[in-house]
């Protein structure tokens, strides 16, 4: 039996959140009533012409630069010709030769191992409108009629295409997640898969382990979450393995992922595929990105997720906590501010990714809606370090601070949670307990340490649980042995 290796490449479409559309002045806003964010240009009325949106160009340059692409000095727009009712011009303005960015890469760290995924190209294009098929299935087959909404038509779209460097569904998912983080860190898109502002198509093929030739691939469309991308690719690998094991051949085709049934089905084969008749868009000038512009883009590159994870790690968070904090930038910011403010990074990281995340999930809140500020974390960490709060009490205080009851000191006092770590105050209680339990003291002096725990418990009870157990323990050992 052959050992098959999966070869996977991913095409990602990212809608840029610019103020206006790619080639006209219509707002980019998805909450609007159908066909209200439209104009002669994005409806392709006769005579209308496109003008490229500078903000979108800045956006794609950020993405291409963050993926370490070579930025093309003179980049060209093309017309990609095909007829579809939600494509108003019946051609899409896209790029073909000379895309904005080429030859980039994205380093993935999965289970401690780094894999470099090559980025073939990053190019600029425009989105289509939306077809709303009116019928029971919501799909085109069996629809009685179709309604069209052109609000999305002309929204700037960036396509990121990888080399076939991905080898597993898990890796594909990790790539998608990391690209999403990068796009969000750049602030150019909300990159929401469920809303379609980020969309994946996966090209999957198999080849015998060790071969360096590419097999025939199928393109899987309609994956609307990272999880469904992983599932769809896993399914596709299984399907193709079965085909090949049975001596068959994989057909080059586009396949549709069905989320409910968990299978891919054939949409169209390559023989029926269209000839897009690309030619250079005569209505737009070449896009000239000079060295000064390229320098500006490089200079404003923000800290990317991988760098941030490394920095959090350096600040004392373990890899898992660092990853979680990078995925929740609000918590990450709190973490940074608290640590910079002098807090011990370890408990802060654990609190944020433990109690705080659980609280937010339970209450359905964002961190900004709670009473927690970075100063509270600094204070809480200090109180714990100085022994004013037990670790259990610290969690209780944190919960109360989140709920808006006040700062940690005030909460701890109000709830009477402060530990007594003043030795003289504890000493009195210890002396009383020792005096009342002469037997136990006797045994300890005889070398039996068992009663120590009993005596500590007695002191804790006498102090209402607020004495620092470490201090109590220490005092009993010295005094009883004394």
């Amino acid at each position: 039996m052959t050992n098959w290796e999966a070869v996977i490449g991913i095409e990602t479409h990212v809608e840029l959140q610019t103020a206006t559309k790619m080639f006209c002045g219509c707002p980019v806003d998805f909450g609007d009533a159908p066909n209200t964010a439209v104009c002669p240009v994005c409806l392709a009325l006769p005579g209308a012409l496109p003008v490229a949106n500078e903000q979108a160009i800045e956006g794609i340059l950020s993405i291409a630069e963050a993926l370490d692409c070579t930025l093309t000095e003179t980049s060209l727009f093309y017309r990609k010709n095909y007829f579809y009712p939600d494509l108003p011009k019946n051609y899409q303005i896209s790029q073909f030769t000379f895309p904005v960015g080429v030859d980039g890469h994205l380093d993935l760290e999965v289970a401690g191992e780094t894999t470099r995924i090559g980025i073939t190209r990053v190019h600029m294009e425009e989105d289509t409108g939306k077809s709303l098929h009116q019928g029971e299935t919501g799909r085109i087959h069996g629809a009685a009629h179709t309604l069209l909404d052109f609000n999305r038509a002309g929204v700037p779209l960036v396509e990121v295409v990888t080399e076939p460097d991905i080898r597993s569904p898990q890796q594909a998912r990790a790539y998608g997640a990391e690209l999403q983080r990068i796009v969000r860190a750049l602030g150019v898109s909300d990159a929401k898969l469920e809303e379609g502002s980020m969309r994946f198509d996966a090209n999957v093929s198999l080849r015998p382990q060790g071969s360096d030739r590419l097999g025939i691939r199928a393109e899987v469309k309609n994956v609307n979450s990272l999880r469904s991308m992983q599932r769809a690719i896993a399914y596709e690998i299984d399907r193709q393995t079965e085909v090949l094991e049975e001596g068959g051949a994989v057909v080059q085709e586009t396949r549709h992922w069905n989320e409910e049934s968990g299978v891919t089905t054939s949409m169209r084969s390559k023989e029926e595929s269209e000839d897009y008749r690309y030619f250079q868009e005569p209505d737009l000038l070449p896009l000239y990105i000079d060295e000064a512009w390229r320098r500006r883009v490089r200079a404003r590159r923000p800290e990317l997720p991988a760098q941030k994870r490394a920095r959090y790690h350096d600040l004392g968070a373990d890899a898992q906590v660092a990853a979680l904090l990078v995925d929740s930038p609000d918590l990450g910011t709190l973490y940074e501010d608290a640590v910079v403010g002098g807090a011990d990074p370890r408990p802060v990281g654990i609190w944020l990714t433990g109690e705080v995340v659980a609280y937010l999930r339970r209450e359905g809140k964002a961190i900004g809606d709670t009473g927690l500020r970075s100063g509270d974390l600094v204070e809480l960490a200090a109180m714990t370090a100085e022994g004013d709060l037990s670790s259990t009490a610290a969690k209780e205080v944190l919960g109360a601070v989140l709920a808006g009851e006040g700062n940690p000191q005030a909460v701890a006092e109000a709830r009477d949670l402060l530990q007594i770590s003043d030795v003289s105050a504890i000493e009195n209680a210890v002396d009383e307990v020792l005096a009342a339990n002469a037997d136990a003291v006797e045994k300890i002096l005889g070398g039996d340490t068992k009663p120590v725990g009993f005596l500590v418990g007695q002191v804790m009870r006498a102090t209402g649980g607020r004495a620092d157990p470490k201090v109590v323990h220490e005092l009993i050992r010295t005094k009883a042995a004394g």
Partner: protein
Amino acid sequence: MSDLADLTIHEAGAGLRARNFTATDLLDATLRRAAVTEAHLHAYLTIDHDGARAAAATADRSLAAGDDDRPLLGIPVALKDNMVTRGVVTTASSQILAGWNPPYDGTAVARLREGGAVIVGKTNLDEFAMGSSTENSAYGPTRNPWDTNTVPGGSSGGSAAAVAVGSAFGGYGSDTGGSVRQPASLTGTVGVKPTYGLVSRYGLIAFASSLDQIGPLARTVADAATLLEGVAGWDRLDATSYHGDLPDISGSLEAGVEGLRIGVVSELTGEGIDPEVLSATRVVSDRLSDAGAAITEVSLPSTEFALSAYYLIAPAEASANLARFDGVRYGLRVDGETTEEMMAKTRADGFGPEVTRRILLGTYALSAGYYDAFYGQAQRVRTLVRQDFATAYERVDVLVSPTSPTTAFEIGAKVSDPLAMYYSDVCTIPSNLSGDPAMSVPVALDEGGLPIGFQVMAPALGEELMFRVAAEVERAAEFTVRARLATSEVDA
């Protein structure tokens, strides 16, 4: 000539400012002329009586208030029906846009309105500007006012005929391969194809985007200059529009040609050009020489390939530009069982034969496996054409040639022979491929009494020089005759 409709724009403007008559008087004269001539010519597809009256009244109020410094204020003009006009039906002479009422004005149209021009109506053209005779109109042909058995040229034949006959003081057309200059030549008018990018294409229904330019048709060179200045200039809605200082066109007309170097295009002096046209061209060249210009012959070797390259590039771009006419959002819709069938039926019914032919030709030229041999090769020829012009302009200041290889031909004469029709643009196409300006000036009549045009070409943004030479051509030719239909008694 006591009829106001026969005044030039400059005469009419002077009269308005002197209060000799009003803008409404000019419009009335124009509409009276149209009422007589339209039955014979069919220059207009739509006459916007209400809009024109309102614009004339507005112009009269401005004039009365002394707000009268806009050169086109109160001047009745005709627009080719591929220029998008808000609230006035715009069809590009196609069934597929029958009754389409645009919600916006193209930039040139908006500038004319701001300039106080009175838009009389929309003129006939070859469907989507594809043709050289104005016979390819879904609404019937336009006829030539010099001889109504002949064509007015095309595709801007409607505007040319209207200007020639006096049913507009000035007109606008679009020139993709000669569609302003060739009808100007055939109707005894002045027609200009400006430098690519000088006039915004926003709101011009696209035929071939890299070649299309809006340009004026007029009865004099000075009027043409004024009409061009009324619409030229940068537009943020057209990424290909020129952003820089505009040439001072009107200011250059009296400078003469003393000391200028004028090149006669040698490839356009022989085979394929009507001998009468050639001899008229030579006469004008001699007079330019008499006026002090140095005349030499200059070769543009790529000229013989330009026509073929054009008939690949223009249809290729058109095949994409016309894809939007699909029955989905506006215009004609012919129902079908599926969306694809609806689109196919709409397009089959909506486009005429010449448009269909060019869409097919262009689609084929861009197809996988053919692109390099056709579209790619045509683009290389285009580069050669540009280089030829650049080389020529190292030796001369302007180039001249006939505008059209023949004078007006009979209606129907070339309808069944597309290649013969395509040849009508042999002299004009190179300037579209190079993007440089060119214009036609009427210089003589042939033996049949039909006008002959003389073409002046200049380097990009060389409009000043081009008009300077054109004005001298106009003076030298002393061409003052008017179209028969404009001067004879015609039954109303």
